[in-house]
């Protein structure tokens, strides 16, 4: 029998959502609270949370904005893994069982329930100067044309422009878990993104920030960060390339060999 599109939204299962509840201002300890809701095939974790908030428990706190995997604000631990709530379907993560567990991102202080404090994460992001730094201030003030770039130059940093700043990689990083001063995969891969941009002149300005005791050398290349990135950015690779960049510079070598990044790479990345 043919299935109508409306059937996709018919409730087909009751799921128990086990949610972490904690208000550090009031509670001594966090606690788990369970909510039962009916879900259909298309119900996302964010839909489920919104329904709980509207119909069962208005005190539940979580963060979201775009609802379509673009803003990065709904990242949380879903069944123990860093994921975007708006892009994750309840039935997909339930794996045939009737229980899904939600808790705030690891490695972040909790503000309330599922909402985390991103202050230090954004401070680290800002610390690497994530913008184009130019020496030609006259040209900047009175531009005579565009800053042109070849496809090979663009391919060097293309994948890192997809970063949502969702914090999933930071939350999965075992180094960040122990070393709170570590810049983390997001900031370091963004440093790489700007340091290899052919329009940028800020290489020397960023070196004292990333080449430190708590900078890129603390990455042990466990790649947990790349494993959880919802946008398929590969921050672990970015950090290794950043290390290579610094070492090549030490020996007076050019940042990249000409044949290192081929135009086909862009197609490859886009197909993922």
């Amino acid at each position, binding site marked *: 029998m043919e299935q109508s599109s409306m059937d996709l939204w018919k409730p087909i299962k009751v799921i128990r959502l086990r949610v972490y509840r904690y208000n550090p201002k009031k509670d001594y300890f966090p606690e788990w609270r369970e909510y039962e809701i009916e879900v259909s095939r298309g119900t996302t974790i964010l839909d489920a949370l919104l329904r709980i908030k509207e119909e069962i428990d208005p005190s539940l706190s979580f963060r979201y904005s775009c609802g379509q995997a673009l803003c990065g604000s709904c990242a949380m631990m879903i069944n123990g893994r860093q994921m975007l709530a708006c892009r994750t379907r309840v039935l997909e993560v339930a794996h045939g069982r009737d229980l899904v567990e939600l808790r705030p991102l690891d490695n972040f202080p909790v503000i309330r329930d599922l909402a985390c404090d991103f202050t230090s994460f954004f401070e680290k992001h800002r610390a690497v100067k994530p913008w184009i730094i130019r020496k030609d201030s006259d040209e900047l003030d009175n531009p005579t044309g565009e800053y042109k770039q070849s496809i090979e130059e663009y391919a060097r940093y293309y994948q890192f422009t997809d970063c949502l700043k969702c914090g999933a990689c930071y939350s999965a990083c075992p180094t960040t878990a*122990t*070393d709170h*001063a570590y810049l983390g995969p997001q900031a370091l891969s963004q440093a790489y993104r700007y340091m290899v941009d052919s329009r940028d002149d800020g290489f020397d300005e960023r070196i004292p920030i990333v*080449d430190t*005791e*708590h900078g890129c*050398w603390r990455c042990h290349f466990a790649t947990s960060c790349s494993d959880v990135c919802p946008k398929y950015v590969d921050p672990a690779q970015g950090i290794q390339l950043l*290390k290579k960049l610094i*070492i090549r510079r*030490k020996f007076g070598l050019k940042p990249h060999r000409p044949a290192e990044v081929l135009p086909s790479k862009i197609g490859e990345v886009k197909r993922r």
Partner: protein
Amino acid sequence: MRESTKMLLHYITGLLIVVTGLIHLLANNDPNVGKLITGNVYLYLTNMSVFLASLLYHAFNGIRVILIELVPDACWTRLIGWALLLIGIATYAVGIQVLLMSLGLV
């Protein structure tokens, strides 16, 4: 010293440990290489001092990395670095003295 220099030395000493360690093993176990190396006391001494220096740098830098990750505090990081450097130099001095004595050079 920049962190990249410290880590570059870490990788280089890792390689040196393999090379000089292998020479050390062969010198003691392979009759041909043994004759060549142990026959020349200065060659043996050079290999062993490079081996010991690499081993100590690599090991103590590894400990430094673990400690600064566990206690990420700027003042503590500097203290750890200096303390390990001093312990490393003292251990190297004792090691070289033992080596010179065993070779009958002092």
